[in-house]
């Protein structure tokens, strides 16, 4: 009996050890993938839907850096107050937070949704000027729930390289990594 159990245990342990890298790859593709992460909590439940669908603003009206520089930039509260100074805040707790923050001079610490590693340098201006829509990477942000913007595209190196190859964009390492 013992002569059978011993090799069986060895084989089982061996299979478990061999399964670790396979499981890691699977986890990286599914559980750990950026698109599989739940929406991050935001200090203010900002509704993109109202600003885009109801008011009809362009993405670049607020994210002004997107067409000219690397960062798309989150607008300063001053820009929000351009409109919100005359919009009543009664019974709108989210708006009240905005006005209070502006009046007290404290910036809002938004939680970053699309977080690339430090050694990756993405330049919004190049992609926008090459004719891509914001939605190509960011998805339909206007239809996302208030304060619940999620990442819809992988945006890891495989994703970037595939798109760069398809569009004849440079794939030299020094294009992004420095």
């Amino acid at each position, binding site marked *: 009996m013992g002569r059978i159990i011993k090799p069986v245990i060895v084989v089982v342990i061996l299979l478990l050890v061999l399964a670790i890298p396979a499981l890691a790859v699977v986890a990286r593709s599914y559980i750990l993938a950026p698109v599989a992460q739940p929406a991050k909590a935001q200090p203010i439940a900002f509704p993109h839907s109202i600003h885009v669908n109801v008011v009809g603003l362009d993405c670049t009206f607020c994210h002004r850096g997107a067409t000219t520089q690397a960062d798309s930039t989150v607008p300063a509260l001053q820009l929000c107050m351009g409109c919100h100074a005359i919009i009543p805040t009664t019974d709108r707790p989210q708006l009240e937070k905005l006005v209070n923050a502006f009046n007290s001079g404290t910036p809002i610490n938004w939680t970053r949704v699309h977080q690339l590693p430090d*050694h990756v340098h993405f330049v919004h201006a190049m992609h926008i000027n090459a004719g891509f829509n914001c939605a190509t990477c960011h998805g339909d942000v206007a239809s996302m729930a208030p304060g619940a913007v999620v990442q819809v595209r992988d945006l890891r190196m495989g994703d970037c390289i595939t798109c760069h190859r398809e569009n004849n964009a440079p794939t030299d390492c*020094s294009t992004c990594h420095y």
Partner: protein
Amino acid sequence: MAHRWGMTIDLDLCTGCQACVVACQAENNIPINTEENFQQRRAIEWIRVERYWEGEFPNVKARYIPVPCMMCENAPCEPVCPVYASYHTDQGLNFQVYNRCIGTRYCSVNCHWHVRFFNFWEPKWPDSLKQQLNPLVAVRSRGVMEKCSFCIQRIDHAEQSAQLQGRDVKDGDFTTACAQACPTRAIVFGDLNNADSEVAKTVASTKRGYQLLADLGTNPAVVYLKKIDADPLPEDSKHKYFDSSQYTRVKETVAVG
């Protein structure tokens, strides 16, 4: 035509002030070197100013040579990297990909100019300096080789700006941090393939150009201009071991590109 970024360093103009070293340190988020680091020979300086003494006391002259990465055309550091972290870009830059590097340090062993540096520790800055870090340059973590990049962030930015404006990069659109900081304009940066650029003109016209360790045949993109000594030391007073002319071979014309 693809760019070939290069540099000329006029040793006649260099005063050894180390402004280039400081500028590079600030631009490229290089960790602060302590005295201990220096004594261990683990200090990180993407550009350093080497000092040589010429002559015997009291007839001594100080000689300075700023040494950045030579950006060799046939770089000895590249073929030894097992993971292709050290590679050649299509613009002729010898480039280090930090996220590929596994820290074997073969490249630094194979570099004759000693311009590759290993991060032996996690880089640290005092709180007062954290806000001055350059957001355009990644901070290299422990276990990664790093080296002069010819300020690739500036190159990329200049190329992208030019592309957005629908033109090519012009000479003088940008320069490296060391060249920008040089008070005597001893360091000049530009495109060697562009015949109208200042560096290409200098390289084509100078009679005192030479490359450091040119005998190795790696064809560095950094061209030095020999010092003009108005008041040379008498031959017999020159130090027999530290005569800088022994280490520098002057060529009439320098083949670059």
